[in-house]
């Protein structure tokens, strides 16, 4: 059975600042990142949709210790965002100083600003893209 929204297509879209997801035709749940089966009801009947890229910060951290080869990115903020469509997604936060990020971030409205490409390292099978959010003015 064919995989409806493969990593490659999802990733290419994210690089264009387009967040794709899957909408379940049976229960209406949005699954992102893509899977074979709906994350809620396991139905295979899902359609690819474009998500708004807007949501609310659920949690965050400022990371000061990176994986081998990613030290130059420090410090950076990682987030879990609840998208308006209901799904949570991991991403980064731009436009906020990581060294002063505090609990006040939680609950703030954000919008996806760009897809930031991690070019990959010797272990990863090529690149991957992180959705980067900004706080909505």
């Amino acid at each position: 059975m064919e995989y409806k929204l493969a990593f490659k297509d999802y990733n290419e879209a994210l690089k264009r600042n387009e967040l794709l997801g899957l909408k379940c035709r049976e229960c209406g749940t949005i699954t992102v990142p893509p899977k074979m089966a709906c994350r809620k009801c396991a139905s295979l009947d899902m359609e690819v949709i474009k998500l708004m890229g807007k949501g609310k910060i659920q949690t965050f951290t400022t990371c000061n210790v990176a994986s081998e080869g990613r030290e130059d990115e420090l410090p950076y903020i990682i987030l879990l965002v609840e998208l308006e469509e209901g799904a949570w997604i991991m991403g980064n936060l731009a436009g906020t100083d990581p060294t002063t990020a505090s609990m006040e971030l939680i609950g703030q409205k954000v919008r996806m600003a760009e897809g930031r490409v991690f070019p990959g390292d010797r272990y990863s099978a090529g690149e991957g893209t992180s959705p980067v959010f900004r706080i909505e003015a």
Partner: protein
Amino acid sequence: MRKVAVVGVGETKFSAAQEKTSVELFAEAAMEAITESNLKPKDVQALFLGNVLGDFSEGQGMVQVFAAENIGCRNIPANRYEGACASASMAVRDAFMWVASGFYDIVLAGGVERAAAMGTALATRTFAMSSDSRYEFPSGITFPALFAMLAHLYAARYGIPIDKLKEQMATVSVQSYHYGMFNPKAHLRKEVDVEAILKSFMVSTPLQLHDCCPFSDGAAALILASERAAKKLTNRPVYITGVGQASSGPLANQQDYLPRLQAREISSQQAYNMAGVKPKDIDVCELHDCFSIASLIAAEGLGFFEYGKSGEAWMKGEAAIGGKVAINPSGGLKSKGHPIGATGAGQVYEITKQLRGEVEPERQVDGAKIGMTDTLGGDGGTLVNMVLRCGW
């Protein structure tokens, strides 16, 4: 299904980077377990071995076959388990099932890791491989970062000011360091107070160095035997009376439960139900405190304390020896250490010793009859729980 007992246990010291190979480390733990069981290597019918990073730490795949042959368990089936930090518990659970089923009578289970030997940068990278590599690693996720996000979420969800939560988390670390002081096999043996914890390096907000367990080298091993075999080998068998294991997907997709971990709640219920016990029946528990916040989340998921209240419980001494349930009298991952592929077997080692009354008096839970283990792999991706009971 047959009853299955732990009849012998062995463990190396958990430590900073050291020079023994994985095979050598496991061989030491395994022979201790085999000898304690009054057995010879030829009596072992199969090996179930947890190992996560051998491919990276010493370029060694298939460590299980070299380990089996090395200790004289020639030609037996040898299986490796990889479920990040829960690997050894997966191995023990499978070993349990094969003996319970009647297929084997005597098996060796355990784990080994040289995590400290890898250094922080490579260890951080390879640990992060247990997060979603394509959809979450690009954001720079690390294990401290993921539990750091759970800490902030925990504070927000339960309405606990972050400074108060940090004090509660520090209390968890203080207790673990304290018990580890008396454990000769512990990696970090020092008293650390709240002030020192709150002054330590900020790894990933709000988690500081002393909120995090170390990367450790070490191995642990157990002999499991059917009830009939066990009765011939020892007059103090420790029965595994309940087991559970469950999985979850990438962190963001666990959204409906976070900061709770659904896999733990499913897994521990399986173990409780199978053993016919409730959280209040547990005398001593070794739970997965890879980070201080992880202890709070675990103790609640296991049903020991109310959601959002376990920090207070630690501060009141309810998680200490003499409290409601003695948690991590070994020093836990925080002090005893975390050789990830061996950690779960190390927890069973500790519970077995506790139930037999064989640990140092300063950290012995007197009269403990029922113990529990809790091992978490990845970002809640794998959870394994076991309930153990005195068989005498």
